[in-house]
């Protein structure tokens, strides 16, 4: 390979002995794909990784299993609806994610640490930043990838329900409206859950701890909020129910969709937040998503430098 290596002239015995040898390194002259391409690669890599694609067979098991578990009830409902020729699907589009929240929580708890904790634990983050991407690109790519993965997880069963409803010849306009509302709701849910999961996973890089921390935050907050709501319902303080609902991600989404997306609420008493309270719900949801993004950016500002 050493094409351009200069021929060694017999060196004079005295004088400068040092010489830089050209051993044939070539400089790269092809196209440079740049920052946006690197970001896109990181995004697709992370998204594939969230379902175990491009990873070992063992790590495909859990996400695929959760995905199947997520879709089976929808398939069963559709089968029943087609067979019995009912006029309505047994479950609203907006309600489905709330019912299956345990599966969604497990998915985010297992995949958020997978997405960010390993890079931190094995100190590979500096390798990413040696490419032409910045902190913001890394955070955006990871956030977008996990949000997309969650959206795939939550929207696919809705799609199954929608297609099934059309096959069962239910009212087209009605079903389309419900489907669209469901999609908006799961998109919000995906953004919120991905943000919370990533923030927690990014501050607990230790294996196992991140998973437990994400699950703890999601389930304990839901358990606490629904317990308090049940008590407030027994105490006839229905005003308090809506305000308590602000303190857990699931009830937050529930409140938003029952205020604006025509969903029936799962709050005790069946009374969701009014429109005024609904605005607060939306603001808090969007604020939380923004705060998660901000925290992530802050977390990665010093990593890898």
């Amino acid at each position: 390979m050493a094409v351009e290596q200069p021929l060694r002239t017999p060196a004079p015995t005295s004088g400068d002995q040092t010489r830089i040898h050209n051993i044939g390194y070539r400089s790269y002259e092809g196209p440079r794909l740049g920052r946006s391409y690197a970001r896109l690669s990181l995004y697709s890599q992370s998204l594939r990784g969230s379902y175990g694609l491009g990873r070992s067979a063992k790590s495909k098991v859990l996400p695929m299993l959760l995905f199947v578990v997520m879709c089976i009830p929808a398939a069963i409902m559709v089968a029943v609806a087609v067979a019995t020729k009912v006029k309505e699907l047994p479950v609203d589009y907006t309600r489905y994610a709330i019912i299956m929240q345990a599966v969604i929580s497990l998915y985010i708890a297992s995949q958020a640490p997978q997405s960010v904790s390993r890079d931190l634990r094995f100190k590979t983050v500096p390798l990413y930043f040696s490419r032409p991407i910045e902190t913001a690109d890394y955070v955006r790519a990871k956030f977008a990838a996990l949000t997309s993965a969650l959206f795939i997880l939550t929207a696919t069963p809705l799609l199954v329900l929608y297609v099934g409803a059309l096959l069962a010849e239910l009212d087209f306009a009605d079903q389309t409206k419900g489907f669209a509302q469901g999609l908006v709701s799961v998109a919000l849910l995906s953004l919120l859950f991905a943000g919370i999961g990533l923030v927690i996973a990014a501050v607990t890089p230790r294996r196992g701890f991140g998973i437990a921390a994400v699950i703890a935050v999601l389930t304990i907050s839901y358990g606490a909020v629904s317990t308090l709501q049940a008590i407030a319902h027994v105490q006839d303080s229905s005003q308090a129910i809506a305000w308590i609902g602000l303190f857990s991600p699931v009830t937050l989404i529930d409140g938003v969709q029952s205020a604006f997306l025509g969903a029936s609420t799962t709050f005790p008493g069946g009374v969701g937040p009014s429109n005024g309270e609904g605005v607060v719900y939306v603001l808090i949801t969007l604020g939380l998503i923004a705060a998660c993004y901000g925290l992530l950016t802050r977390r990665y500002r010093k990593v890898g430098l």
Partner: protein
Amino acid sequence: MYDPTVARLTYRALLGRRRALILGALPLLLIAISVAVRVLAGADDQTAADVLGGLALATMVPIIGVIAGTGAMGPEIDDGSVVYLLSKPIKRPTIIYTKLIVAIAVTMVFSAVPTLIAGFVLNGNGQQIAVAYTVAALVASIAYAALFLLLGTVSRHAVVFGLVYALVWEALFGSLVPGARTLSIQQWSLAVAQKVSGGDLVTSDVGLTTATILLVVVTVLATWYAGQKLRTLTLAGEE
């Protein structure tokens, strides 16, 4: 059978640095909720039973059990530092036994003690509810710690499997399929609690005899099998 040095190292792995804060956050939240409920609703036996049963025993004890049980063994196997421990002249079952004691102690301190405090805050131990749920939390701590310690020894994804058991099997299937309740540590410990309280606020689907036998069998079997697994442990790289 008990090695103080291993115990000290395990305590440090579980509670060192900021980890004690994370573990402590859950019990604090429980107590804060109890105070809020007491202020909002006053002392009420049914409410107290709901909060302690739904929040403390059904969610908090399993999660703390998962963290303590898998955290006692899992990370060490994971980062390979377990070889330094295994190369010492200590019997493998002794290591498991010591780690189990530590995991049980941590789970009990972080779940049973706050349950007792929360019970007293909620209704001042009316109808023995606080004591009953504390006993349930204590009993459940032993079984959960043993089971999750085994998971941590056997699998690299112990936390996920532990949570799937605690949340999907016990909570989701347990509420849908009555048969699943027979095979649930939560119900077994509730059976013991039922005996303690004597009232009808704490109920279980499993008889006391069955529950006790199953609890002992699960704990002993899990510990024994974890010891056996540690004797033939193979170390593997990430993924």
